[in-house]
């Protein structure tokens, strides 16, 4: 599934870990910075000395640049009318795009969704509504396990704090924002000035909109890294109620194992309803009609939703750093933890068993995702395509004096920055995933304790922030002592390997002890094994205590924060350079290329199609027959393909050949979960819930060779509503049939 919450992201110290995500400095065993000879024929840098380049082994002229290498996540500001006409022969006019835009929704939880009736009925994924199902459960109910179906409107249950937003209007505010930065000198300052202005406009337009209609909200969206700004006005529905959710066992059929894969058989669907302020179902003339015919192989389909971001627009040297340092180190760290945690897969029955099971699943799924990306980057074709594209930019750049004057050294600066990162990567390697829940709770609590003490010591820090940190620290779950000890051991080994055995930090930390005995000593002499002990220490003053972790974290934390800070400064610099690169691309190609995704509404075109996989062909569809095949085939080895009771013996009228999942070539990213997949008449034919394993490398270059978006086929939803759930009210509503009851 592409919803970020379920992608195995670890809870971490948000205030500490600013730099971890993007430049992800965390990688690498022992790094030698090898100055590689320049092998590129046309060094595009007129001004400076030759730059360190990573060898491009593929001849640039051998590579076909894909027209859509940068992706197909089109904005509604600048819809691809001509392309749609050229490729699909459809006359998508402004009314067509307006209808596609107004039927689509963004959930406050980060997912996408759509209206599928004129009474505010909302279609989204089960995994997007998962928290809502939990939130509306009453004492003694286990709705997640048993599913939920509101028999009448009165039975629909309001989900606390959940809202949905509909993109009501778009206004270009680029010139207003840019006017604020025209006189500002300095890159950083200019970026800041624009962002300040954007916030001001957001506030101003937001207030004005709210006067007209209190359900309207305004958000200024930065596109092309600040080359374009648009004010998006959203209509917000704040009363959202749960209408239907199937059992999690069918919604998440195949579990973490099948996550990111196809062929797939999950009924990952849920229905919500938007209500107006008077407590009546919202009137929503802008909704998508339900296609009873569904889609066929080769059909044009359009995915409308809110994708997050990709890494398609950076430099090749950044990709190489990612490929050679960041991802290999993260994958190695994940593999070590997966090996350690594998024996606990499926463990349950106590809080610590659950914690271990969750940790195992998070680890293995993140490993799956990162390995998929790494495999993509290690594919010569991918880097070759990006290299060819970069050459194209360089060639085009030097055709213009003004552009070459301004951006001539841009790639060189990015390349050099990667060299600086490489030099630091070696030290950082030992701290990969440090400060996240993917490791020892004892060390993590110690790190929180260290941070908490320092925040308090500073005095000028907002008490609310300190309270939040404390709350977060005390919310950590517990691991059994022996598992925690092996995680501490692993961490100490990783740090020692990264720093070298002679490093003074490790030497002073270890003294005469071995890593094994130090880890054992920490676990034997700490109160940080659970939150109760931790809370006491926080009150008494953690750093002043004689807890065994104090000395350890006192040695490690300063080193960690120093490296973090260094990487963060690299990251800031890189952000600026990447923004300049976006500006350069925009100067060269304008809006022909869509801007990178920005968690705002996009439309992506594609076709329903299978692909080659596993030595054969993956079909474009799966059916309920495959669901039952998996249910029976895997029953000896896992509960992940288990079926809820009511699914075990379906009524005779239930047609097993009904298409269940469907794949299409639409571009997507995390955040697209719950997006409607529409045919050219803007009827909903599918509900997007994941990308296949081959789509992971689309992070770097969009490809439609084997990468696919996976949807639940609407026919399967209807068949299930009719024959499994007997949800006649819902069936009539989505089919817009007159109410016969």
């Amino acid at each position, binding site marked *: 599934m592409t919803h970020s919450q379920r992608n195995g992201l670890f809870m971490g110290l948000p205030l500490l870990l600013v730099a971890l995500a993007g430049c992800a400095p965390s990688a690498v065993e022992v790094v030698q910075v090898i100055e590689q000879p320049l092998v590129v024929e046309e060094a595009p840098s007129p001004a400076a000395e030759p730059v360190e380049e990573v060898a491009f082994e593929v001849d640039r002229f051998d590579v076909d640049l894909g027209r859509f290498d940068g992706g197909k996540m089109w904005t509604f500001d600048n819809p691809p009318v001509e392309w749609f006409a050229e490729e699909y022969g459809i006359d998508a006019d402004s009314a067509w795009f307006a209808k596609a835009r107004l039927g689509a929704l963004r959930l406050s939880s980060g997912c996408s969704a759509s209206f599928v009736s004129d009474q505010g009925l909302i279609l989204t994924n089960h995994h997007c509504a998962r928290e809502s199902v939990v939130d509306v459960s009453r004492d003694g109910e286990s709705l997640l396990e048993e599913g939920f179906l509101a028999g009448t409107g009165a039975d629909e249950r309001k989900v606390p704090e959940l809202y949905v937003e509909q993109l009501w209007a778009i206004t270009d505010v680029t010139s207003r924002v840019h006017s604020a930065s025209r006189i500002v000198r300095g890159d950083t300052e200019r970026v800041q000035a624009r962002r300040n202005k954007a916030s001001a406009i957001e506030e101003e337009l937001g207030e004005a909109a709210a006067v007209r209609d209190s359900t309207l909200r305004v958000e200024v969206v930065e596109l092309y890294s600040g080359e374009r700004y648009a004010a998006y006005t959203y209509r917000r529905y704040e009363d959202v109620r749960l209408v239907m959710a199937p059992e999690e066992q069918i919604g998440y059929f195949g579990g973490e194992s099948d996550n990111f894969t196809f062929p797939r058989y999950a009924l990952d669907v849920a229905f919500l309803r938007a209500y107006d302020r008077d407590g009546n179902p919202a009137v929503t003339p802008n909704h998508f009609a339900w296609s009873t015919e569904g889609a066929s*192989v080769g059909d044009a389909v359009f995915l409308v939703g809110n994708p997050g971001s990709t890494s398609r627009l950076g430099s090749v040297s950044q990709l190489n750093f990612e490929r050679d340092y960041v991802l290999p180190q993260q994958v190695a760290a994940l593999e070590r933890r997966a090996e350690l945690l594998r024996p606990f897969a499926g463990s349950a029955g106590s809080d610590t068993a659950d914690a271990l099971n969750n940790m195992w699943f998070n680890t293995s799924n993140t490993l799956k995702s990162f390995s998929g990306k790494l495999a993509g980057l290690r594919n010569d074709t991918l880097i070759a395509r990006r290299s060819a594209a970069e050459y194209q930019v360089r060639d085009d750049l030097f055709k213009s004096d003004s552009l070459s004057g301004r951006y001539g050294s841009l790639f060189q600066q990015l390349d050099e920055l990667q060299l600086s990162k490489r030099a630091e990567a070696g030290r950082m390697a030992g701290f990969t995933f440090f400060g996240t829940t993917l490791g020892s709770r004892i060390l993590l609590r110690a790190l929180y304790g260290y941070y908490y003490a320092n925040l308090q010591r500073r005095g000028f820090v907002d008490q609310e922030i300190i309270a939040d940190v404390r709350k977060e620290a005390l919310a950590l779950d517990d691991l059994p002592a022996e598992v925690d000890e092996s995680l501490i051991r692993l961490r100490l080994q990783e740090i020692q390997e990264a720093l070298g055995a002679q490093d003074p930090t490790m030497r002073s930390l270890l003294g005469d002890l071995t890593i094994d005995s130090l880890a054992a000593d920490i676990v034997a002499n700490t109160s940080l094994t659970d939150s109760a002990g931790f809370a006491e220490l926080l009150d008494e003053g953690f750093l002043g205590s004689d807890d065994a972790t104090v000395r350890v974290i006192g040695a490690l934390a300063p080193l960690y924060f120093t490296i973090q800070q260094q990487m963060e400064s690299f990251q800031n610099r890189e952000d600026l350079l990447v923004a300049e690169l976006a500006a350069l691309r925009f100067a060269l190609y304008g809006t022909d290329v869509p801007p990178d995704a920005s968690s705002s509404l996009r439309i992506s075109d594609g076709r329903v199609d299978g692909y080659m996989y596993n030595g054969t062909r993956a079909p474009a569809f799966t*059916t309920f027959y495959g669901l039952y095949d*998996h249910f029976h085939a895997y029953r000896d080895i896992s509960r992940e393909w288990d079926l809820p009771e009511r699914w075990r013996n379906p009524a005779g009228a239930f047609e097993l*050949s009904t298409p269940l999942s469907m794949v299409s070539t639409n571009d997507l990213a995390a955040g697209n979960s719950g997006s409607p997949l529409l045919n050219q008449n803007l009827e909903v034919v599918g509900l997007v819930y994941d990308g296949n394993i081959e789509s992971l490398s689309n992070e770097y270059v969009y490809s439609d060779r084997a990468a696919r978006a996976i949807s639940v086929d609407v026919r399967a939803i209807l068949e299930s509503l009719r024959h499994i759930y007997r949800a006649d009210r819902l069936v009539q509503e989505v089919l817009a049939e007159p109410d016969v009851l």
Partner: protein
Amino acid sequence: MRYCSILCRVVGAVLLGSVTVDAFAQAGQSVPVSLDENIDVKHVWRFAQETESRSPLPRAVDATWVENARLGSLQLHECAAALVSADGLAVTSATCLRSLETWIRPDDSVFVAGTLSDECNLPGLTVRQLVEIRDFTRIEDASEDLEAGVEAEVIAAADSSTFREYIWRTYSDVRLVVIPPADVTDFGKEEGVYPRYAIDFALFRVYDGQAQPLETESYFAWNDRSPFARERLFATAFDANAPFTVMTLLNTFSYNGTVSPPYTTLYGMLDQYYSHGATGAWELTEDWLSGIKENDLATALNFSVVGDCAQTGAGLINVDMEILGIAFDNTDTAEGTYCVAMSTSGILALLRTVLKAEGVADELAEQALP
């Protein structure tokens, strides 16, 4: 002679020459001295994976067991087959018959012999059963004056200090009993692929010299249940002449970002049929489609075991001498080669429904002609 390898003698003809390697060793892998010293298996063991080689052979696997497993196995062409009734009925992969040079039946036809008299002679096909293995130190001790229908092959150790003689009984009256059409034996036209949904098997009967069904005490009982995940299985086959037995494990492997199914089912076959739009390599005739649907669709169809197939057509048997599958293809995975097998439960179900071969199905259930 095509069966001869390094040094070989057929019906008394000794061919001696210089050999530079130990022919015993060459014929197979190591003899499992570390397992049960008491078992004089005269037999070569292989292990599909190192983990299997470390686990002890089950207690029931003694010299008699090994001999029975060997006697229940047949060599045909470049394939293996397994006897499955006391009256000479044997099962193999459909490919093994279709690849015969003398095979003349059209690929798209189905054949089911309703009675013994309908069974159709397979000209040019000889199958062999390894009935005895003899070790001796003087070449003069080799068998002489073998009766008709018996062949012997002698292999010498490198220094000619010891000899081993394989005595084969050969059968040239072999008749076709059941073969499904190629569009189901080759469903999906896939090679080297798992998960797989093919109905790949054929049944034939071995007749004795008097044109009577071969009476045999050595055969495998037909198992009609779906296999278990991590079930221990064995396969006996003939490598280039020497028999060997592989101990393996029904297992899954990482594939496509997830884990492969322990076995596939008839549900899965229909999923493929409908998913691919009921066309091309995944097309089924109306007879097969409706016939398959008459079954319990949860019936196992194909499964995968660790290691490469000992030989196409080899029977996969459990420790109780029951046959659970027929090896028909290899698949290369990130975790090494796996062998893809046809499930006997699937075969039995389809014999009764689509193929209307009740007589054969009853024979498999009764382990003898009714």
